[in-house]
């Protein structure tokens, strides 16, 4: 037994590790390195917000409204005299939290639905697929706006809204993947020796369809950050006075004659962070599926 194992390991080249493939693509392009640096900075700023922010993001002062950028207030102050930079630093927390939690919870729910539909088939599949197909016809932003219109804003509602907006995409991928491996010999073998269905799903199917799900999750971190910003800008996301990059722009637009700096600061931050996550997402996708890179 051991001799067979040794021979085969000599004949077959070692499989390239996934981590190494990702590393190779990520650090092979200058743009991606910059993106990783931006994301690292975002994480540091979000975690250390109370230490880094020069002022309390909520403290107002009638004495210093609409100040232009200065040494005391690097990005000036808004119409309530709040320090824009401090609000942006605290706002980064929202972006990071929603950007990470929503794709993850959507992946959890969507994958479950997709695997159930693909594995059991029949009427369950028909119902789930029809609803998923219908929801996929809606752009995520529109779906999110429509659901937020009903639910209203606030922390948990934003998570629910973005999660629902992403669920159909995960469900479709998970269903397709499940269908393609359902009749693999190892699944049929498990069924024929009487392994219980939940064990088959979680031991034999889910681990084997994870790669595309993880890629999708990476790609949607950027979308989630954009969505949260858009919802907060529309007033149905993070609620005032809590800072979010989206509602900083909303406040800035209401005070457009006062100071353009909140808009410029928060807008640039969103753009850079979304760009960075997009680049890293693309890199991870290319690493896992070289055929997509052109």
């Amino acid at each position: 037994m051991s001799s067979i194992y040794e021979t085969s390991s000599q004949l077959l080249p070692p499989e390239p590790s996934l981590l190494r493939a990702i590393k190779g693509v990520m650090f092979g392009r200058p743009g991606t390195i910059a993106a990783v640096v931006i994301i690292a900075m975002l994480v540091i700023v979000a975690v250390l917000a109370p230490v880094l922010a020069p002022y309390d993001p909520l403290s107002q002062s009638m004495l210093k409204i609409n100040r232009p950028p200065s040494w005391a207030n690097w990005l000036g102050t808004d119409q309530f005299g709040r320090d824009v930079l401090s609000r942006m630093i605290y706002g980064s927390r929202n972006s990071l939290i929603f950007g990470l939690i929503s794709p993850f919870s959507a992946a959890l729910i969507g994958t479950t639905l997709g695997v159930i539909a693909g594995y059991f088939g029949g009427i369950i599949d028909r119902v789930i697929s029809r609803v998923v197909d219908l929801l996929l016809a809606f752009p995520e932003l529109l779906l999110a706006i429509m659901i937020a219109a009903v639910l209203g804003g606030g922390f948990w509602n934003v998570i629910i809204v973005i999660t629902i907006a992403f669920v159909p995409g995960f469900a479709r991928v998970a269903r397709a993947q499940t269908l393609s491996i359902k009749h693999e010999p190892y699944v049929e073998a498990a069924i024929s020796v009487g392994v219980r269905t939940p064990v088959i799903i979680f031991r034999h199917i889910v681990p084997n369809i994870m790669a595309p799900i993880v890629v999708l999750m990476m790609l949607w971190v950027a979308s989630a950050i954009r969505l949260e910003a858009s919802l907060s800008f529309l007033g149905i996301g993070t609620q005032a006075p809590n800072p979010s990059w989206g509602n900083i722009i909303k406040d800035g637009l209401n005070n457009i004659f006062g100071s353009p700096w909140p808009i410029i600061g928060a807008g640039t931050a969103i753009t850079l962070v979304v760009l960075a996550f997009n680049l890293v997402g693309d890199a991870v996708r290319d690493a896992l599926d070289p055929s997509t890179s052109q």
Partner: protein
Amino acid sequence: MSRYLLFRLADAVPTVFLVLLLVFIAMRILPGDPAIAALGDMATAEQLALFRERMGLNDPLWLQFIMFVKGVLTLDLGNSMMSNQSVVGLILYNLPYTIELTIVAMLMGLAAGVPLGVLAATHRNKLPDSGVRVFSLVGYAIPDFYLGALLLITFALNLGWFPINGGGTDFASRMYHVFLPALTLAFVKAAFIGRLTRTSLLEVLSKDYVRTARAKGVQERRVIYRHGLRNALLPLTTGLGLSMLATLSGSVAIEMVFNRPGIGKLLINAIAERDYAVIQGGIVVFAMFVVVINLLMDLLYIVVDPRIRMN
């Protein structure tokens, strides 16, 4: 072809029904009492009871759903609780502005995006290609409401070339008012369409018939436009539908930025005022937009690809 058309139209009916069912479920069954949502936490029990009675919220759910579908079909979505105007009237007033914005933005996006895509595909891995790539990366990343705010500050507020709000009255002033908002949405569109055109054109240009055309000495220009672009149109049509829906979702924020009338602004203001009937109406309109645009795109396939016409 007429059979395909009929089939596609018939298929839209259950879709519309399902969309209405989902909207209904969202409005009635999701956590949160519509009466409290509409009147606020401070409302008295009598006010809440009166509201439920007036909106038919005490009826059994199936009856509420039938009344809701009937309302949509007979174009009666109730009255706004704020202004007491009919919801359908409000929608009809705002609808042209949103459609106008979406169409102008799409046209501008196509006019810029397709040539950019051709340029990138014909100069693959050279400077124009990298330029288009950077442009599309930025176009994907920049939030449209931020870009809109920048354009508003620069061209309307500081330079005074364009109006800072409103929708305009006659045709000329409406085009004048729609220019900056449409340009904002078109920027993102152009990035998307450019990338899509590049990808599908590159794919087509590697086909055998393109090599044949070149081998027999057809002019390169003619190869690109007649043999290449024509066949790259089909994937582009799919992208066009998606892009149009994305433009529509973007129009919500853009209408807020430029303070112009439209369905998005109607919906967002209704949410702020907790105007239940208008919120429901706005959601129905957006849902119908999605169904209709998908239908139109399927019909456009027939025009673009004769092969579908045959089967």
